[in-house]
């Protein structure tokens, strides 16, 4: 194998690689632009929002006017303000849920893949059983059991993601556990935690990174869906999915209430998925 091939396979440091990858792909750049736009909106939300998001400031269900750029909702709240302030919850909750899931899932996958045996069997069967359950239903069940709240939305999304992540990490670990460097670590008597966290975990970074991005998109999507089903963050605080939910029944009266948060949500998910796409892309042969 030549040095060049090694280079193009590129196990170079992760962060610069990330930016290089993004920079090279138009899709990635565009996705980053969208996501950054929303992040900026979230950061400067209080400055941007013309009104307090929960205040009943105008007449109900109005289309855009000079006063209310994106119209008002059924309670006469400013849609723009709610949209802007709702950015925060999506942009905070989705990453928390995903990171939580990645942490737990990676831990389970590492242990189960490396230790093998009965433990692995049990964990994987449990995983299978959980994966058997449609994700959305799992969310719904968890939230129905715990009640709708931001924390529970995070918990539900995290819990439903854990099996998939565990499986990915386990796959990586199983592929690596008989590799020379792991055997070598065993032969020099490394502790379990060292092998798991230092030798194995970094090797799962790449699949985890792509998975995290995809999951981030899906989590954002799911938060919206849960909101739409009325199981998201409880009112009155703005929540995109919830805004769509309450807007749907006014659809034929004023489509703005629905269209604005729906498009916002879709654009954010598209942005995240474009970034994920950039990472999935194979380098052209």
């Amino acid at each position, binding site marked *: 194998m030549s040095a060049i091939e090694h280079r193009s396979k590129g196990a170079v440091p992760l962060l610069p690689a990330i930016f290089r990858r993004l920079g090279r792909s138009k899709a990635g750049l565009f996705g980053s632009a969208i996501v950054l736009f929303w992040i900026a909106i979230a950061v400067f939300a209080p400055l941007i929002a013309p009104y307090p998001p*929960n205040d009943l400031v105008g007449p109900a269900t109005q289309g855009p006017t000079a006063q209310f750029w994106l119209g008002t909702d*059924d*309670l006469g709240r400013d849609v723009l303000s709610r949209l802007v302030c709702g950015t925060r919850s999506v942009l905070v909750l989705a990453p928390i849920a995903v990171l939580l899931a990645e942490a737990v899932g990676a831990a389970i996958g590492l242990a189960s893949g490396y230790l093998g045996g009965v433990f692995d069997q049990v964990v994987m069967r449990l995983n299978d059983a959980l994966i058997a359950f449609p994700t959305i239903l799992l969310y719904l069940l968890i939230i129905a059991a715990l009640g709708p709240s931001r924390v529970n939305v995070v918990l539900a999304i995290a819990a439903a993601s854990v099996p998939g992540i565990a499986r990915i990490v386990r796959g990586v670990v199983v592929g690596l556990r008989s590799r020379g460097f792991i055997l070598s670590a065993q032969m020099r008597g490394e502790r379990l935690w060292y092998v798991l966290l230092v030798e194995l975990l970094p090797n799962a970074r790449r699949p985890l990174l792509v998975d995290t991005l995809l999951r981030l998109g899906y989590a954002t999507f799911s938060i919206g869906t849960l909101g739409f089903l009325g199981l998201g963050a409880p*009112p*009155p605080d703005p929540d995109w999915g919830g805004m769509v939910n309450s807007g*749907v*029944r*006014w659809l034929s009266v004023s489509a703005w209430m629905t269209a604005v948060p729906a498009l916002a949500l879709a654009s954010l998910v598209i942005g995240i998925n474009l970034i994920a796409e950039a990472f999935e892309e194979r380098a052209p042969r």
Partner: protein
Amino acid sequence: RPARAWGAAMPKRGGTIRYANTDTLKPLVDPATVDALGPSDAVRGCAEFLTEVDEHNLPHPHLLETLTSSEDLKTWTLVVRKGPVFNTPTPRALDADDVVFNFKRWLDPKLGSSMNGLLSPYLDASGVEKIDDHTVRLHLKAPSSTLAYDLYHYAGAVVPREFEGDFLKQPWGTGPFELVEYVPNQSFTLKARKDYWRDGADGQKLPYLDQVVCIDVRSQASAQVAGLTSGQFDLALGIDYAAYKALAAEPDLVMSRIKSAGTVLFRARVDQKPFDDPRVRLALRLVQDRNQITQLSLGDTGFVGNDDLVAPDVDPAYAPLDTPKRDVERAKALLAEAGLGQGFRTEFRYPTSPDFIATAAQVYAQQCRDIGVQLDLVPMPPDSYWAKWTDWTFAAPQWSHRPLATMTMGLCLRPGAAWNETRYADPTFESLLDEVNGIVEVEARRKVYAKIQARLREDGPFADPLFMYALAAQSPKVKGFVPTAFRYGTFSDTWLDA
């Protein structure tokens, strides 16, 4: 009663009416324990009531020939109509024994019928006496002026005495239809009976329709609208505000809007802190801007309520007291008196359907912030909410229309009543309620009403910000259907003008 004449047109026979019910088709077990409009419609098609309340809120005897009371309203004589026939395997005529059987069932506390809540304040099972095959006498323990109304309560369908408790197995009654199928949360289908006792305008037996199909559309406003506009439904009962607004522009639909006593309560359990303190409850009433609540949640399909369950223009005995004004200062002062000067924070639960409750709750929560009370809104799927609806501390349940406010009061404000979700127990109020129940004459009743209303506005366990219009939309080809405040789907006299 004879069938009504519907203008010049002669009713057409045949056809299936498909109507959308916005009230969940909950599981149906026993007509006497029905607790929702959806299943009650299925029962109502098959089984009938001793009385009937018309669209003007006036009661008439239905399965009864006559219903007469003694002067003191304590002895009532029910003459059972000859003619109605049960669709039991071997059809059988209705008689006094069936009526007695039904009264005994309703009054059996073990059954848990809401009829018990209505009747038991003035009637014990021992007071039901069969005089002859077609006469039953009721000996009340307290005078009652609401009996005729109470008998039209949706849990009061009359079943034959062979009935054993499962209506899906024994869908028996004297009604115009037979139950073909009942699929909870989905639909039910009724088909016309051949031997119904009433005759139509064409001289033949009612009903005109071959079939009735009811579809559960929950509160999916979009599905309601789309279903009606795309001609999937001929009729929708209890559509919500948004759908009404969307449909109002439809030239091809006949919309109706009937004032009802259907309402949403912001009610608190008086056995829980801090709501055990009447000053706190009053503060929570005073903080309401009831116009804003009504406007935003129901627009012109709602009208303002006065915290007393009595709907103006609906209950004939309504006492026109002044509508309470929003008074934030006084509310604050009351809270301070109650030791809650800093305000407080509490969960506020409500079912997510019908939609207007969520709106009302949010507006109310916004208003409450003015007195430092923070409501943590907990929207709940209706199934979850209603599974434990009497347990919640502070919540916003919907209450269906009943022609007389006192009926609702009897159900929800008497200690020990099955639906007393607030645990309210006030002797003053109770004696007033007993008193009014002994009065027939409207003006006399109004005087007591004034006291009751004042008492509830001062001490009651809830705020009652609004009443809703019963909304219906029907295709012009639906004839002979009169929407009522009850939102009942009764189709004995309905036909389709194809």
